[in-house]
């Protein structure tokens, strides 16, 4: 790039900025919502993107007060507070709020707002530049709901026998899942009055120190309730890992397979009668 072409480009920019059609063309072309208000909140500019979203034409809304028809009543307060801030010269500011379209739909808009001052620094106009984030927020909410549902189905607690509840664990354990698991398991034990819980880790691919800690924590909580846990599905590879990691499972009943665990449970219930099954208090 020679200095000549840089200079001519700079000249072109100056000419463009001075061009009266530049700003209207920009406002007409851009996909972002651009609305300008005067200090009383009356609309003075409402670009085509705003028209497309709301269904109102600019000539219909010019001079109307924004919050009298575009804002839902429950979101009025933060918007009015923002407008006060902008008028007082506190900007730029961000706000996410709903707009009500002409046909009564709510759209979620993320706004970047600013004030346009006159020569004396007094704010004359308020500019809001927004993006419609309705779909994004909706899919975010759906994702959260889905994750919760997944959490729900991934920790079933099944009553398999009189006095025996079974938790088939599948996938990896993390803090959130353990919390949920503990909650459901402990409540199931109390509700079904089951003195024995089988934690089956056949479906857990790897046991690391973290997972083991969560398991031990769960087993300890079960003990406090007065029930006993047997850990089943301890495959050779998992047994190896547990020993190599130096995880202390002494005092925890462990079995290689679910069948063995069930047999053990039957033995305990059969010997002691269904009414017992003491554990040591943590």
């Amino acid at each position, binding site marked *: 790039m020679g200095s000549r072409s840089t200079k001519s480009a700079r000249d072109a920019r100056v000419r463009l900025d001075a061009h009266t059609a530049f700003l209207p063309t920009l406002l007409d072309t851009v996909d972002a919502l651009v609305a300008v208000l005067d200090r009383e909140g009356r609309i003075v500019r409402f670009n085509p993107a705003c028209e497309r979203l709301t269904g109102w034409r600019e000539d219909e809304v010019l001079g109307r007060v924004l919050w009298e028809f575009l804002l839902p009543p429950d979101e009025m307060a933060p918007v009015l507070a923002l407008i006060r801030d902008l008028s007082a010269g506190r900007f730029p500011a961000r706000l996410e709020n709903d707009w009500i379209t002409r046909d009564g739909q709510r759209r979620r808009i993320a706004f970047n707002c600013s004030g346009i001052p006159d020569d004396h620094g007094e704010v004359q106009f308020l500019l809001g530049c927004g993006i419609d984030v309705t779909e994004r927020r909706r899919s975010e909410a759906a994702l959260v709901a889905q994750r919760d549902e997944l959490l729900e189905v991934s920790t079933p607690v099944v009553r398999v026998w009189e006095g025996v509840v079974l938790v088939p664990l599948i996938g990896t354990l993390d803090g959130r899942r353990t919390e949920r698991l503990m909650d459901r398991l402990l409540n199931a034990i109390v509700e079904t009055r089951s003195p024995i819980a089988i934690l089956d880790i056949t479906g857990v691919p790897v046991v690391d120190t973290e997972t083991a800690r969560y398991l031990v*924590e769960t087993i300890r909580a079960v003990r*406090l309730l007065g029930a006993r846990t047997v850990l089943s599905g301890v495959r050779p590879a998992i047994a190896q890992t547990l020993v190599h990691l130096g995880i202390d499972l002494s005092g925890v009943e462990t079995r290689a397979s679910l069948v063995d665990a069930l047999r053990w449970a039957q033995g305990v219930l059969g010997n002691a009668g269904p009414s017992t099954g003491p554990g*040591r208090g943590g």
Partner: protein
Amino acid sequence: MESDRISVIRVKEVLLVTMPADPDDPTVSALQERVLEAMSGGSTPLGLVLDLSAVDTLDSFFARTVAETAQMVGLMGGRTVIAGMRPSVAITATQLGLRLGNAETVLDVDRALDLLHEPGATR
């Protein structure tokens, strides 16, 4: 009197204590005294059943006192059985790392009595 909130009942050779929902420190201290008092009177009971089914908060002082009391009862030849701890309490206790010493735990008072009366129970 705080200790009035605790009553130690002797039923069929067993001391039964039901803890109030939110035991404060004086109540917990009173628990230990009353239990030891009851252990020494007349023929020694088989043990102590501590019913926690009403309790919804458990702190470290409570846990320590229970562990100590269980140890003392053990020295006097009895067993301590904790019955009916709520899931939420068990979760908190686990998260706080509280230990109940050599106290045994069961689901409810029924099972605690069975456990203490079962043939071959240490005596």
